[in-house]
């Protein structure tokens, strides 16, 4: 039984929500999962919302100083649908500023791994994954652009689902890169994800790209491991991953290695598109309409805007500068248009493969790093950590990240991807996996 149904059936003590909030606040002080906790929660299965998704009347900053004090006058479509289905809003979850990060460290309060606080939680939906790992009954509404759901889900040992691009309305999502952004779900089981997806998916006229196409459940008997994706994977992970593949064979899947050329170009294409779009999305933060207000109205608008934009974090500034360069007329063909072509080519190469079977890969090429290690990485090393999550994200393919092993007490995550709009099928595989493999959790706040 899904925890959603279980929760609705179980008798709750009168002070259930009070105690839940108290315990959560205490633990949050050390893990930094939430930026806002709704102390008034008094009914419904708790759900959290990544801080780049608007909730009416609740400060929504996408972890950015430039948005401090922004209280949206409307809720995201996904949030409205959750509330309408009886879920209770528990709070806003921490993230890397505007989604720019793989480790959850580009935030005023760095996110920490619930298995061991010395380790990163992963990003950018760091809080969503931590919250799921520490709360017994809870659903996280998160968002992925290039791996922001799969990565923290893998590091925190929970299930992270990113639907086909356009399945869940992005209305109310603070844009990072609109052609790549997907609202998705983090939960403790594939069943919970499937039930939540039923609620939040579907046509929304406030998001033109959200078409409401029906989702398939076409099973595949074959699972492909792409050789080129495995090349950059850390040796310490490979043997565990091979062991996992063997177990899948035992479950009746034919696991085969396949070669897909051009995979190595995915990271570059992704960052070019993501930065080009991000630099235009961040242009609106000029300090006079919402968020942090620059009150010096006597200045010339150029100075006024410049001063307001000083409050972006370093990674945001880097992406604004690179993105603006990529868009400039002299190099637009060489970078922006080329990246768009590469995206189409990558999808064209993967599509035939995905018609035959699922694609399986580790989520991250490395073990969960310590916070200090991650801080020492150069931007380029950081971008490289996304090499496995970028292909499905760049191509808008549905993918699910789930724990398959533990090393030294820390979880390892694998991801399964399938063709566009065949979203339910991969959740089916994870459901099968969950029957033979038990996920571990260090905390179970709100147990009944």
């Amino acid at each position, binding site marked *: 039984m899904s925890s959603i149904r279980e929760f609705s059936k179980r008798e709750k003590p009168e002070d259930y929500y009070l105690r839940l909030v108290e315990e959560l606040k205490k633990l949050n002080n050390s893990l930094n999962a939430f930026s806002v906790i709704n102390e008034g929660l008094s009914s419904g299965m708790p759900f959290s919302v990544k801080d780049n998704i*608007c909730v009416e009347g609740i400060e929504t900053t996408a972890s950015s100083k430039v948005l401090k004090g922004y209280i*949206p006058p409307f809720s995201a479509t996904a949030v409205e649908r959750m509330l309408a289905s009886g879920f209770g809003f528990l709070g806003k979850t921490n993230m890397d500023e505007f989604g720019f990060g793989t480790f959850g460290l580009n935030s005023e309060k760095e996110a920490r791994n619930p298995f061991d606080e010395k380790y990163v939680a992963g990003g950018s939906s760091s809080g969503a994954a931590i919250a799921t790992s520490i709360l017994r009954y809870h659903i996280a509404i998160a968002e992925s652009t290039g791996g922001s759901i799969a990565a923290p889900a893998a590091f925190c040992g929970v299930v992270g689902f990113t639907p086909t691009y356009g399945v869940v309305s992005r209305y109310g999502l603070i844009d990072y890169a*609109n052609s790549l952004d997907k609202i998705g779900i983090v939960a403790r089981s594939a069943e919970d994800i499937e039930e939540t997806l039923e609620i939040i998916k579907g046509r929304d006229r406030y998001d033109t*790209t959200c078409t409401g196409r029906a989702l398939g459940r076409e099973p595949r008997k074959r699972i492909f491991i792409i050789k080129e994706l495995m090349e950059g994977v850390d040796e310490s992970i490979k043997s565990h991953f091979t062991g996992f593949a063997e177990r899948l064979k035992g479950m009746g899947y034919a696991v085969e290695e396949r070669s897909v050329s051009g995979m190595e170009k995915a990271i570059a294409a992704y960052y070019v598109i993501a930065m080009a779009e991000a630099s235009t999305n961040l242009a609106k933060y000029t300090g006079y309409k919402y968020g942090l207000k620059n009150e010096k109205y006597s200045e010339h608008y150029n100075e006024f805007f410049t001063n307001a934009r000083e409050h972006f974090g370093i990674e945001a500034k880097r992406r604004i500068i690179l993105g603006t360069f990529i868009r400039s007329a002299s190099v637009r063909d060489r970078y922006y248009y080329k990246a768009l072509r590469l995206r189409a080519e990558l999808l064209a190469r993967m599509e035939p493969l995905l018609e035959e079977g699922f694609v399986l890969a580790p989520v991250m090429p490395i073990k969960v790093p310590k916070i200090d290690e991650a801080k020492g990485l150069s931007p380029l090393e950081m971008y490289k950590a996304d090499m496995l999550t970028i292909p499905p994200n760049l191509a808008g393919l549905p993918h699910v990240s789930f724990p398959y092993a533990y090393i030294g007490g820390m979880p390892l995550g694998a991801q399964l991807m399938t063709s566009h709009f065949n979203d339910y099928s991969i959740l089916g595989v994870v459901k099968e996996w969950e029957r033979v493999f038990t996920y571990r959790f260090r905390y179970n706040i709100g147990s009944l």
Partner: protein
Amino acid sequence: MKIGLEVHVALPTKSKLFCRCSADASEEPNTAICPICMGFPGSKPMLNREAVRMALSIARALGCKTPSNISFLRKIYFYPDLPKSFQITQLEEAVGREGLVEYKERGVRIRRVQIEEDPAKIVRGDEYTLLDFNRSGVPLVEIVTEPDISGEDDLRDFMTELRSILYYLGVDIERELKVDLNISLAEQRVEVKNITGIKNIADAAHYEIERQEGLIREHRAIAAETRSYNEEKMSTVQSREKESNEEYGFIYEPDLATYDVSDIVPEDPVYATRIADSYAKGFHANAQQIREAILFNRDTLRLIDASKDSNEMRIVMNGIAILQRHKALDIEEGEFLRLLELLRNGTEIDAGIIRRLRLGEEININMRANLDELDDEIRKTIENEGALIEEYKSNKKVFNFLVGKIAKKYKASPRYVSERLRLILEGEEKGHRAL
């Protein structure tokens, strides 16, 4: 001389281009706004289908090729009137490309017709700047011509033709219009930006042509530059801010993806100039007079259309002129045809008659009787009533009795009969036939 135009017109849609706010910018400042047209974080554009339909109609009317899919671009620049710091506009996959506007046996090629959003309105004071976001997101169409306009007269003719075509698609550019003008007399292209209103276009062009002619006469170089038009001084001045397409950092607008317009049915265009010319030819009437009547007036075109079989364009134009005087051009076609009958019968049309026509009242004139027949009848009556006639001068009642008798017998208007009767009696006295 080469002149090219970029014409920006507001589309008269009820709501804005990307949200449901009223597009009526005359509302109380900053009341017709929402998270979308204010560019609030989290909002996304929703494309207004009616705006797309109007833009497609314009593109089609200007002879453009119209694609089955359109897409939008972000044009990024920082200015306080632009809430998102980018404007959603079009370039390559615009609603229309490669069109042609024909008039007076010549043509101006249209490079592109594109949809874009209007920025907010800036109100400047000495010590402050105010922003009204009611205008932010109002749908605009930009029409870009090739530099095919050959001079001031040609510019005027082109604008008249364009204005008429747009008028018949429901877009009145006399209300609001912004134009960028490219003028090159020599090699270098000069752009005059932000000219508002039809009259100022001609004035700006006139000034700029004279300025460039002066430079050429003096063998001085014409700089390739952007200038702006000063309405009060009726002159152009060099702009402080340099702009070029290179600096806008265009990317696709990913929130709108590509938009299928193949099932949108555009409105049929009306080319009033061509219609006027064909009527003028067909009825041997004055083309200029017909053109003036119908270029920017769908009522007159409707009335002319309704009466085109009447074969008497002179009476039709007379009827239109009368209605224009009485501000009654919105009369129904059937009533207009009755009006033409009255005119043919020589009835003097006054406000009362027009009112009765529009109320659908019977007007007592024998529609079938023609002027001469009625006059003959009046004469017959005069002969038969010889004795009474003698008295008509001294006794008003006798005159009225005769009028009533004739009017009743011939179902004619008493007013008309009394006029004819008086004229005939007076003429008879003087020994010759009146009129």
